[in-house]
């Protein structure tokens, strides 16, 4: 598959990536390192919390989303990372046994005014579980090198 540059993204494009199962062990291991709260660490203690049972840290869901889109298209692109994320919404708990996928919509695209070798692509991510519930959304502007920059590099 040809490497994706900024020019290859078109507003309105929708793609789905991934099929990542999430186990209780995954949830607890991530939480022990990054989000040690009862709802993410222990089934029994989680039952007494507002979420009513073991669920993944929202940061774990972000990390899983990143991995799915990395394997889906980012690693095969001229990605230069992202300066931030406008909004992350955790809409429903991610439970042990859930299988997550990510729907990516290109919502915006603009060339960088100050840096002609790169451009921004506005992306809306929806993380869906196997019954189709959207568990998380996020909106970000990723930076991608322009194809012209690769040509400039090749001829230099």
């Amino acid at each position: 598959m040809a490497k994706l540059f900024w020019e290859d993204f078109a507003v309105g494009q929708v793609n789905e990536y991934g099929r990542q199962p999430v186990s209780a062990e995954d949830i607890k291991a991530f939480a022990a390192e990054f989000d040690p709260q009862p709802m993410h660490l222990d089934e029994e203690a989680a039952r007494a919390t507002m979420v009513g049972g073991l669920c993944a840290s929202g940061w774990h869901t972000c990390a899983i989303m990143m991995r799915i889109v990395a394997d889906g298209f980012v690693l095969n692109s001229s990605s230069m990372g992202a300066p931030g994320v406008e909004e992350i919404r955790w809409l429903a708990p991610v439970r042990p046994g859930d299988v997550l996928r990510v729907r990516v919509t290109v919502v915006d695209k603009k060339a960088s005014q100050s840096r002609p070798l790169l451009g921004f692509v506005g992306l809306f991510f929806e993380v869906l579980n196997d019954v189709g519930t959207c568990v998380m959304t996020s909106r970000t502007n990723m930076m991608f090198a322009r194809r012209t920059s690769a040509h400039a590099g090749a001829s230099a």
Partner: protein
Amino acid sequence: MKFFEDLRIGERRELGSHTFTAEGIKAFARRYDPQLFHIDEEAAARSHFGGLCASGWQTGAVCMRLIALGNQRDMAALQASGQDVPNIGPSPGVRDLRWFKPVYAGDTISYALEIKDLRDAGPPGYGLVVSQTTGTNQAGELVYSAQGAVFVERKRNRKAQ
């Protein structure tokens, strides 16, 4: 974290710091964000970042860890003095997450949290605490900020039980 009624807008807490080692950066990135500038020193040196740097998701997750550990300390202190401990619910989300500068291998990031708003939102018995979290490197440069939110139990909920 205290009960919702005991929190005040403007309250600030230093959450502690974390040193991002090359090994830690690569271990996180191999699992969750295997872009070359997060997993390979030589490729990172050639990239626009100029050196191995942490996945932004790791910078955020470490902040979450320090918040949770701070909450654990608060709860232990409340319990030790014989007081009730609030339930802390999930977070509905994060806004304006910014990675201002790369976090390079060897950087030590100091995190802080400041309460920005206390809202009547969420399920009965809870309120919504909105906070600004920040990460600053050893040179005093702001590298990370995000506006977080979390549901925190009200004291009156406990009295009603």
